[in-house]
C-alpha cells in the first residue's frame, strides 16, 4: 500500500512514501491535493472543485483547469513510480483506495476522540506530543489568489483546528491540575497564554499554581507580566480577583502549603553501579514515584560523537523541567552549553536571555563547570535520578565529565545509577570510591 502524508498544521508539507513531493507542485495543485486528502473518504463533485479553485473564471476554462491540474498531480505520482492517486467516478473524483492517507488534522481529531472516550487517555499525552502534531495554524501563510471559496474553506478549517487545539490544551491543563502535576500544567498554561496573551483568567490560574508550588517569585513575575500586557495592549488594569491574589502574595498571606517545601528531599548525591536485574528493578520503582525526575538512558550508540551524551542529558532536562528554571540559569552558563546543544539558543531566546548564536568553542573544564551548574539549578527544583543503562555507549568527553562530576560528589538531591558493564572506564570509575553497589 502506498502512503500519502499531508501535514497542513503549520507550513504545508506533503510526503509520498516518506519522500517530500512539495517542490513539484504549483500552488493550486498543492491546495487541491490537500483538499482531496482531507476529504479522502468522499467522492468530490467536479463542479464543487471547480467552484473552490476556479470560482472566478468562466465555466469552460475552469473545467479545463481542473482537468489540467488533476493531470499534473497524476504525473507527479507517476514520476515517483507510485500508483495512480486519483480515481475518476461519475461527475467526480476521489483519492485512490490504494493509498493510506495520514493527515495531521486527523491525528489531532484522533487525539480528541480518544480523550472523549476516556479521560485517562491524557496519561499518554505530553505537550511535546501535541506540538508534534499542531506545529502551527492550518495552512499557515498559504493563500490562493482568486479562489475566494477555497480561502474561505481555509479560514473555516483554520479556526476549527485552532478551537480543537485550544480545547485539547484546556482539557489537558485540567487533567494535569487534578492529577497534581502542577509543573506540567504550568507549561500548558504558558502555551495557551502565548497564543492569546490577553486572557486574564489563565494568568490567574498560572499564578495560583505557582503559589501552590511555593514559588512566590514566579507568581509575582507573572502578575507583573500580565499587568504589563494588559496595559500595553488594552490600556486596562488587572481584574479584581487578580489584584486580590497579588495582595495576598505581597503580604505573604498567599496560602503556601507546607508540604510544598518538603517535596524536595534533601539527600546527598548517590552514585551506584548495579547489576542488570537490580538496575531494572530500581528504575521501575523510581518510574512509579512522582516526586522525582527520572532521566533514562541513551537510545543510540553514538560513542564516536563528542559530548553526545551530555547533549542528550540537556535535551532530557529541557523536556522535563518547567520553563521557570531556565530563567534562573545564568546567561553565561547557557552560552557555554549551547556549544554542545544548540536548542539552548532557543531556550535562552524564550527567556529573553541574550546569548551569542555564533559558533564558538569552550574549553572542557568550563563546559564541565557549566554542566554542573545546570544540574545544580535543576536539582534545586526536584530530585533528579539519572539512569545509565549502557555506560559503554557514552562518548569519551561526556564520560570525562561524569568522572569529574562524580569525583566532586558535591551535588545534592540527585542520584546516578549505572548498570554494571564490562567497559573498562566503569572499573576506573569504581575506584574513585564515591560508590555504593
Amino acid at each position, binding site marked *: 500500500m502506498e502512503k500519502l502524508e499531508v501535514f497542513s498544521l503549520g507550513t504545508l508539507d506533503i510526503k509520498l512514501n516518506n519522500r517530500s513531493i512539495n517542490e513539484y507542485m504549483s500552488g493550486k495543485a498543492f491546495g487541491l491535493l490537500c483538499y482531496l486528502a482531507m476529504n479522502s473518504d468522499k467522492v468530490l463533485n467536479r463542479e464543487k472543485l471547480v467552484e473552490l479553485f476556479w470560482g472566478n473564471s468562466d465555466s469552460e476554462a475552469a473545467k479545463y483547469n481542473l482537468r489540467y491540474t488533476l493531470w499534473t498531480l497524476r504525473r507527479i505520482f507517476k514520476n515517483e513510480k507510485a500508483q495512480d492517486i486519483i480515481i475518476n467516478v461519475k461527475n467526480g473524483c476521489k483519492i485512490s483506495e490504494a493509498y493510506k492517507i495520514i493527515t495531521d488534522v486527523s491525528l489531532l481529531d484522533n487525539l480528541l476522540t480518544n480523550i472523549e472516550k476516556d479521560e485517562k487517555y491524557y496519561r499518554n499525552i505530553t505537550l511535546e506530543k501535541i506540538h508534534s502534531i499542531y506545529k502551527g495554524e492550518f495552512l499557515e*501563510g498559504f493563500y490562493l489568489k482568486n479562489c475566494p471559496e477555497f*480561502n*474561505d474553506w481555509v479560514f473555516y478549517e483554520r479556526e476549527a483546528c485552532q478551537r480543537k487545539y485550544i480545547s485539547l490544551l484546556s482539557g489537558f491543563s485540567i487533567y494535569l491540575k487534578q492529577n497534581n502535576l502542577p509543573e506540567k500544567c504550568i507549561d500548558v498554561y504558558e502555551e495557551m497564554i502565548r497564543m*492569546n496573551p490577553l486572557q486574564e483568567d489563565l494568568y490567574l490560574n498560572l499564578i495560583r499554581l505557582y503559589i501552590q508550588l511555593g514559588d512566590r517569585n514566579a507568581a509575582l513575575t507573572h502578575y507583573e507580566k500580565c499587568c504589563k500586557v494588559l496595559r*500595553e495592549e488594552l490600556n486596562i*488594569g488587572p481584574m479584581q480577583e487578580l489584584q486580590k491574589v497579588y495582595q495576598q502574595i505581597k503580604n505573604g498571606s498567599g496560602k503556601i502549603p507546607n508540604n510544598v517545601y518538603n517535596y524536595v528531599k534533601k539527600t546527598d548525591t548517590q552514585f551506584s553501579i548495579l547489576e542488570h536485574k537490580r538496575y531494572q528493578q530500581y528504575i521501575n520503582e523510581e518510574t512509579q514515584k512522582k516526586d522525582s525526575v527520572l532521566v533514562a538512558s541513551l537510545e543510540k550508540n553514538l560513542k564516536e560523537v563528542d559530548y553526545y551524551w551530555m547533549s542528550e542529558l540537556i535535551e532530557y532536562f529541557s523536556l522535563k523541567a518547567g520553563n521557570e528554571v531556565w530563567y534562573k540559569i545564568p546567561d553565561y552558563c547557557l552560552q557555554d552549553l549551547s556549544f554542545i546543544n544548540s536548542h539552548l539558543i532557543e531556550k535562552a531566546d524564550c527567556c529573553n536571555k541574550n546569548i551569542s548564536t555564533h559558533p564558538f568553542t569552550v574549553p572542557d573544564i568550563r563546559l564541565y563547570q557549566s554542566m554542573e551548574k545546570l544540574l545544580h539549578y535543576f536539582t534545586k527544583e526536584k530530585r533528579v535520578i539519572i539512569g545509565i543503562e549502557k555506560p559503554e555507549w557514552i562518548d569519551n568527553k561526556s564520560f570525562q565529565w561524569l568522572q569529574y562530576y562524580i569525583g566532586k560528589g558535591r551535588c545534592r538531591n540527585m542520584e546516578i545509577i549505572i548498570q554494571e558493564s564490562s567497559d573498562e572506564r566503569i572499573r576506573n570509575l569504581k575506584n574513585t570510591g564515591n560508590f555504593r553497589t
Partner: protein
Amino acid sequence: MSGIDLLLYNGSIYTMDSRNTVKNWVIIKDGTIVETGCGEGYEQYVQDAVESIDLKGRTVFPGFFDNHVHLAQTGLNLMSLDLNHAENLNQLFEIISEAASKTGKGEIIRGIGFDEMKTPEKRMPNRRELDKCSPNNPVWINRVEYHVSSVNTMLLSMLNIPFNLEGILRDEKGLPDGRLIGRANLFVRKYIIENIPNQIKKEAINKAIEHAICKGITTVNSMEGGNFFNESGMNCILENNSIFPIDVKLFYQTTDIRKAIEKGIGCIGGDLFLDGSFGSRTAALLKPYEDEILTNGVLYYTQEEIEDFVLNAHEQGLQIALHAIGEIAIDQALNAYEKAQKLCSRKDCRHRIEHFELATDSQIKRAGELNIIPSMQPAFEYMWGGPGKMYETRLGDRYKRTNRFSKLIREGLCIAGGSDSDVTEMNPVLGIHSAVNHPVEENGTNVLEAIKMFTCNGAFAGFEEDSKGSIEKGKKGDFAILDQDPFKVQKEKLKEIKVVGTIKEGNILLIR
C-alpha cells in the same frame, strides 16, 4: 570677527527675551548666536559672513516648538493612501483599485482617514469588496480615528489572528468578514506597523520632519510607544535621532519605568491615557455628556495605580507627562503629582499634563502651585470649539470652559503649545491664530502670549531655556522666518501668515 556662518539682516527680529526686545540683525557662528543688533551695525560683518540673508523687512522668531506630536504616526499617514475624500463606498473602491494598479505585487496598501459616517452606506467595507479592488495586494483600511479596521482576504490570511480574540466581525456563514474592532483592531494595527520595513519607517519619519520644517519648527516633542502607537516607531526615532535635521525629544508612553531608563529616555508618559477624548465621549467628566447622559467617560487607571507610577518615576528623576482632558482625569493627575512631591520633594521637575482642556478654577490654581506645565493644543478650539461645533454637542454649555488660555496665563502657568499631530497638523502659525482667536473670546490670549507657547515656553518645558526659545547671545541659531508680522496683521488673519524660512543651528533648512 571671522568664521561667521550666517548673517540675517534687515528684518524685524522678535527675540522673545524677557523684555521682548526687537532687533534687526543676528549673527550665527558654529550654530550659536554670537551677536544681535539694530540698524546698520551688521554692515561690518557682511564681508566675513559665509552666507548672508537680506530679510527685506520680514519677521523672524526663535525656531518654533511643537510640544506634542506623534511623529511616527504622522509619518505613517504621510506614506499611506488618504481616503478622507471618499464620499461613498464606490469612490473608496475606485481609489483602492487605482492604488492597487500602481502598487508592486504583494506590497501592502495602507488606507487611512476613511470616515464611513460621511458616506450614505454608513459602514466599513468587508473583505470581499476589498478583494475585488485589490486581489493581489494585501489591503488595510483604518477608520479615521483608528478604532476600526477593514482588511481584504489576502491580509486576513497573513495575519494568523487567534480566532478567540474579541472584535472579529463575521458574515452570515460565520466566517470573519474582514472588519475588525476592539482587540482585533489593535492586533492588526500592531501587525501592520511592525511589518513596515525599518527603511520605510525612517522615510516616513523623515517626511513628517520635512513637514515640520515647512512650518518653521526646529524642535518637536514626540510622544511614542505604548498600546496604541507601538514601540517600533519609537525605536526607529531613537536609532536615527542624531541624524535628524531638527531636534526630536522623545516621550515614552509607558508605565515601565525601568525600560524607559534602559533606553535612556528621560521623559516618561506623553499620551499616557488617564482618560480619552471628547470626540469619542471617553474624556472623564464630572457630569455626564450632553448628548449621552448615561456616560461620564472613562478612567483607564485607578488612582492608586497612577499614584504608584508617578511616585516611582518621580523618585527616579524622570520628567512625567500624563494625558488628562476631563476634570476627573485632571484631578487624578494633580493628586498623583501632589502626593509624589509630598513624599519625595524634588525641585523644578516640570511635570506636565497633556491637553488639560477642561480644568476647573481650583485645578488651575493647584497646577500653578505644583509648577505643572500644561501642554495644550489651541487648534483643537479652531477645529471643534465654539457654538454649534463638536465640543458644544458633547459638552453643552461647558464648551465655554475648554482651553482657557487667558485664565491659565493670568494664574502664572507656562503653557507649552502643540498640535497633537496627526490629530491636527503640525502648524504653529495655526496654533497661534487659534489661541488668539479662541471661539470663546474671553478664553483667548494676546499674540505675544500665543507665540510664547510655541517658542520660549516650549524651551522651558524641555529644560532648554538656556539654549533655545529666544534669540539671544549664546543660544542656538534656530529661527522661523515669516512673511508678515503677526503683531501687525489683523488678528483674524493670523493664520494666513506663511513660513518662508526655517534655520536650525545656522543651517538653512528652508528658504522661500
